[in-house]
C-alpha cells in the first residue's frame, strides 16, 4: 500500500477512535457504570436514596466488548450476504445499541430492587429518560469502533476478522474509558460537596451529590458535566492509542524487512518513554502549583 494512503486511513481511524472514546465515556457516565458505580450502589445503604441511573452491566471493558462484538458480528454477517459496508456497520451498531439498552434496563431495575431494605425506589421515568441516551451513545461508540475495525480488516489487511477486531477494540475503549474518564465523574462530580482535592473520607462514602442545579440530579446531568472534560480527554486518549499504535507500523512497515520492523519497535518504545516523561512532568508541575491539601497542613499545626 502507498504510505500516503496508509497515513490517510490511519488519520480516519484516529478520528473515529477519538469520537468513540468520547462517546464511550459519556455513555458510561449517563448510567454511572464502572468505578463511580460503587458509590451510587452504596448511597442508599448510607440512607441517601437517589435518582441516578445505576448501569451495573459489568465493568466497562466487557460491556463495550459485548456491544462491539455484537455489532461486528451482525455487520460481518450482512457483508457476507452482500450488503454495503456502510449499511452493514450502521445496522450492526443499531443491534448492539438495542441490546445494550436491555442490559442497562435489567441492571438498573435489579440493583434498585436489591436495595429494598434501604427503601430505594425503582423510578421508571429514570429508565425512560436515560436508556435512550445510553443507547444513543452506545450506537456512536459501536459504529466508530466498527469503522476502525473495518478499515483495519480491509484496507490495512489485518489478519484478524472483523468481529474479533471489534471485540478487541471494544475491550480497549472500555479500559481506556474506565481509567481515563471515570476519574472526572467519580472524584469530581459525585463529591462536589467536599472540598476539591480532599480525597474521599470514609465518613463521606455514599454521600454523593443528589441534588442538581435544578431539581434532583440524574445521570444526564452528569454526562453534561463530563462532556466538558472527562469525555473529550477519554476521546483524545483512545484516539492517540489507535493513531500512535498504527503510526509506527505504517511509517516503518515491518513487511518491508526485519530491520524496518525493529525500527518500528524502537519508535514505539521512544513514544512510550516520551509519554512517561511528559506525564511525570505534568504531575510534578501540578503538585508544585497546587500543593498538598491545605486542611492537612492546618491540622498538622494544631496537632503540633
Amino acid at each position, binding site marked *: 500500500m502507498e504510505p500516503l494512503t496508509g497515513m490517510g486511513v490511519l488519520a480516519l481511524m484516529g478520528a473515529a477512535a477519538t469520537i468513540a472514546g468520547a462517546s464511550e465515556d459519556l455513555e458510561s457516565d449517563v448510567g454511572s457504570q464502572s468505578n463511580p458505580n460503587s458509590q451510587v450502589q452504596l448511597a442508599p445503604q448510607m440512607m441517601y436514596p437517589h435518582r441516578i441511573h445505576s448501569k451495573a452491566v459489568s465493568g466497562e471493558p466487557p460491556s463495550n466488548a459485548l456491544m462491539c462484538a455484537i455489532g461486528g458480528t451482525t455487520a460481518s454477517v450482512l457483508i457476507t450476504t452482500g450488503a454495503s459496508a456502510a449499511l452493514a456497520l450502521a445496522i450492526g451498531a443499531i443491534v448492539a445499541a438495542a441490546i445494550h439498552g436491555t*442490559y442497562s434496563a435489567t441492571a438498573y431495575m435489579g440493583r434498585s430492587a*436489591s436495595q429494598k431494605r434501604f427503601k430505594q425506589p425503582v423510578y421508571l421515568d429514570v429508565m425512560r429518560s436515560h436508556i435512550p441516551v445510553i443507547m444513543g451513545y452506545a450506537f456512536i461508540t459501536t459504529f466508530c469502533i466498527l469503522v476502525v475495525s473495518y478499515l483495519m480488516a480491509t484496507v490495512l489487511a489485518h489478519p484478524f476478522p472483523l468481529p474479533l477486531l471489534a*471485540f478487541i477494540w471494544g475491550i480497549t475503549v472500555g479500559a481506556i474509558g474506565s481509567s481515563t474518564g471515570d476519574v472526572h465523574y467519580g472524584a469530581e462530580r459525585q463529591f462536589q460537596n467536599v472540598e476539591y482535592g480532599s480525597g474521599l473520607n470514609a465518613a463521606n462514602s455514599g454521600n454523593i451529590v443528589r441534588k442538581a442545579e435544578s431539581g434532583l440530579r440524574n445521570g444526564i446531568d452528569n454526562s453534561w458535566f463530563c462532556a466538558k472534560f472527562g469525555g473529550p480527554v477519554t476521546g483524545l486518549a483512545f484516539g492517540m492509542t489507535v493513531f500512535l499504535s498504527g503510526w509506527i507500523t505504517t511509517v516503518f512497515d515491518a513487511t518491508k524487512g526485519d530491520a524496518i520492523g525493529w525500527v518500528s519497535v524502537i519508535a514505539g518504545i521512544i513514544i512510550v518513554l516520551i509519554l512517561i516523561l511528559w506525564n511525570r512532568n505534568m504531575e510534578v508541575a501540578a503538585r508544585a502549583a497546587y500543593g498538598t491539601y491545605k486542611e492537612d497542613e492546618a491540622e498538622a499545626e494544631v496537632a503540633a
Partner: protein
Amino acid sequence: MSAGGSGAAAEAIPQNNIIAFGVAGGLIGIYAAYFLVDMVGQYMSFIGALGAICGMIWGAAAVRRVASYGLGTGVPSIGMLALGMGVLAATFGLAVGGVAGPVIALITAAIIGLMVGVLANKVLKMGIPIMEVSMTEIATAGTITIIGLAISMTGTFDFPVILSQVITTGYIAVIFIAGGLAILHPFNANLGPDEAQDRTLICGLEKGAIAMIIAGIVATVNEGASGALTILIGLALWYIGFSGYYDRVKRDAYAVVGSGLLPSKEELE
C-alpha cells in the same frame, strides 16, 4: 443476609437441581441439535442454543453462589474466567473427541475448573469454602455455553466446521462475550442485600435468549444451520425472560413508581 454480603446465598432452588438442569439440559440440547439437524433438517439447530441457555442459567447460579462471599468487583472477572476455561476445554474436547467431543470437553472443563479452584483457595488463600466446587461448575457451564451456541451457529460440532465457521471467522468472540455476560451479568445486575435467586436466574434466561438471537443471526449465513427459527424462538424467550424479570422486580422492589421525589426522612426511618 443473602447476596452481596459475605456468606452463603439463600436458595429457593437447591444448587444440585440447577447443576442437574445445566448438565442434562446442556448435553441433551447439544446432542439433540447434532443428530436432529442430520435427521430432520437444519432448522433444528436452534436446540443447541436452548442447551446453551441451560448452561448459562447454571453458570449464573454458580456465579451467584460463589460471588455471595463478598466478591463485588470480582463478579465480571469470574464470568470472563468461566468462558476462558470454557474455550480451552471446548476446543480441546471437540478436537480430540469426535462424537464424544462435548462430553470430553465437559470433563476437561471440570478438571481445569477444579485446578483453578484449588489454586485460588490453597495458593492465593481466598478462603471461600465453595470455591473448588463453584469453579468446576462455572468452567463446565462455560463449556456448555460455547458448544451450544457454536452448534446453533453451524448445525454441528465437528471440529473442522467449528474451526472454519466459528473460530476463523471470529464469531467465537461474540460467543465468548455474549455467553460470558449472560453468566456474569445476572448476579452483577441484582447485587445487593435483597437479591433473590429466581430474579437473578430469570435475568440469566433473558440474557441467554439474547445470545441465542445473535447465534441465530450468524446461522443465517451458514449452510448447515438455519437462523430464522433460532431468532424467533430467541425473541420469544427474551420476551418471557424480560417480562418475568420485570414482574419479579415489581414484587421485590421497595416501590416501582412512574416518577417521584426521593423518600422523605420520615419514610427512611
